[in-house]
């Protein structure tokens, strides 16, 4: 294993450690309501953060001794050694448009954009066909959930239809 993967591993274990420290800090500075009784709201968070800190320290020691994590396999054949950050960023970026669009433009727009972006990143290159599939998918989902199952979805630009 090379240096780079050790750095990644350490960053991961380090963030667990930081998470534990954040919990300690938050718990120590917490406003405790006066009527909390003998067993207040702080004991359990202290236990959890202590546990998390111990475990992350353990993992850091393991990593330094050369015991690295095994990336999980996928249902899609082989995994690659290095992360493909370009595809990853396109997918993550597309996902981030969803919360921005869903209430402003409505479900159908948000869903179409997300579907299109993700399928593009996963290698669907025929843009017109792709757009059409995205739109049809979103319309079917919208109408089957709102009309069929009575689940409320933001209508957005479809208001009144």
């Amino acid at each position, binding site marked *: 294993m090379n240096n780079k993967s050790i750095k*990644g591993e350490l960053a991961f274990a380090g963030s*667990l450690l930081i*998470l*534990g420290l*954040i*919990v300690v800090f*938050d*718990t120590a500075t*917490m*406003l405790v*309501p006066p009527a*909390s*009784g*003998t*067993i207040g*709201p702080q*004991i*359990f*968070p202290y236990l*959890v953060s202590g546990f*998390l800190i111990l*475990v*992350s320290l*353990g993992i850091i020691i*393991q990593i330094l001794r050369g015991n690295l*994590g*095994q*990336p*999980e396999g*996928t*249902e*899609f*054949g*082989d*995994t*690659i050694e290095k*992360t493909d*950050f370009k*595809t*990853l960023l396109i*997918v*993550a970026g*597309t*996902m981030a448009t969803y*919360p921005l669009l*869903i*209430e402003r433009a409505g479900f159908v727009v948000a*869903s179409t954009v*997300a*579907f*299109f972006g*993700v*399928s593009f990143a*996963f290698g*669907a290159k025929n843009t017109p066909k792709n757009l059409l*599939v995205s739109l049809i*998918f979103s319309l079917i989902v919208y109408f089957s959930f709102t009309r069929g*199952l*009575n*689940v409320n979805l933001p209508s957005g630009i479809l208001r009144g239809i």
Partner: protein
Amino acid sequence: MGNIESLINGFAGALTLTNLTFGLIGTILGTLVGVLPGIGPALAIALLLPITYTVSPASALIMFAAIYYGAMYGGSTTSILLNTPGESGSVMTALEGHQMAKRGRAGAALATAAIGSFVAGTIATLILAFAAPSLAGWAIAVTAADYFALMLVAFTTVGTLLGRSMLRGLASLGVGLTLGLVGSDLQSGAVRLTFGNLHAIDGIETVTVIVSLFAIGEALYIAGRAKNTGWSIIPMKGKALMTRQDWKRSWRPWLRGTAIGFPLGVIPAGGSEIPTFLSYATEKKLSKNKDEFGKGAIEGVAGPEAANNANAAGALVPLLALGLPTSATAAVVLVAFQSYNIQPGPLLFVTNADIVWTLIASLFIGNTLLLLLNLPFVRVWVRLLKIPRPYLFSGITCFALMGAYVANNAIFDLWIALGVGIIGFAFRRFGVPITPLIIGLILGPMAELQMRRSLQISSGDVSALYGTTLSKVLYLILIMVVIAPLVWNFKKKFANKNK
């Protein structure tokens, strides 16, 4: 009222047109998500949770149970024809099943998997119908301290037995417990880990976490780490049928698989990984055709498949009788119960007897439907695998984002979903199992409640936590679960050094 009488009443409740329809939809959806890679029963049920606002509890729970069972039937199809075990429970099936498929015996492999699942599911559900009420009756006497100990055992077994590294499993648990802390503390009203955000006071939505860990995390992981190749499906020749010889070689593994799978589902042993592995090892040891193993031995499909199904039924026992989920899917079903204000646990069989018995009866019906649905129509299901990969992931992503949003109609939840999705990516990348996080998130607040209850009664005296016999036994088990693997490893190292 005796169990048999209750069960008959349950059948009467389940066999209405509405409930049968929901059961049928559930079996179809369950098989669908089982067949499709990248999407599982926990995710499917989480996505459908919004229907709990509009559908009656019995109908919704019947549908969820059918999805739960159905996903296992579908999962075996994928692992046999694609050699890509989706769920950890299908790894062993893929081992022999895929070899059988390569030798043109896909039909027999699929048949023994489906019939074995049916046999195991039916027997296991029957045991469930009798075991769960008696366990519940006994559990009424269980104290808060006992519950706390029981949850600690569940935490430890789920955390240490899943995945390759014990510490990484426990780290996953720790993150789940931390996420469970967010929001206002129900007992004192104190606000924890919200950093001034008003939305966070209600806590982090469990469904959002589950959906984004499984779907969004998976989509990110595949995008970043998988080779951009399709999958190769082995074409299936003939029908899903078994020869007389196949039957002869299958029925004993089915029964043994059931016997191994069910008890390991009842105790929190960390999912279907261990029972299916044990079943495979047993069949390999007992088989007269040892040399066939690794090249497509039917026993190696029949046993693990039965164990997998029996294990799933077994996991319903602690869920219904104690309110204790031991797998990710069971955890989502618990959330479904709670959204109807029904709390699974010892009192469930008293307060909501009709719903529980209808649910148990519908498990029998669902299992039968699944057999009828899977054997003759297996080709139809296989065709699903021809959905182009980009569209499959777009669909999963869109459903997941929608599921995260509709739980509370809140954009805040969507940002949480993206954050948790990144955690899901990192967990996969660094070999950290996901289920412990979910168990920690759901059981964490419950464990805290029981601990504080117990300590409040004793006014802070910690010895109250291990005061009862049951809690002492449970802590003993806990110590064994932690120590045994360490001793085992030490022994191995020692033996290697002396060589």
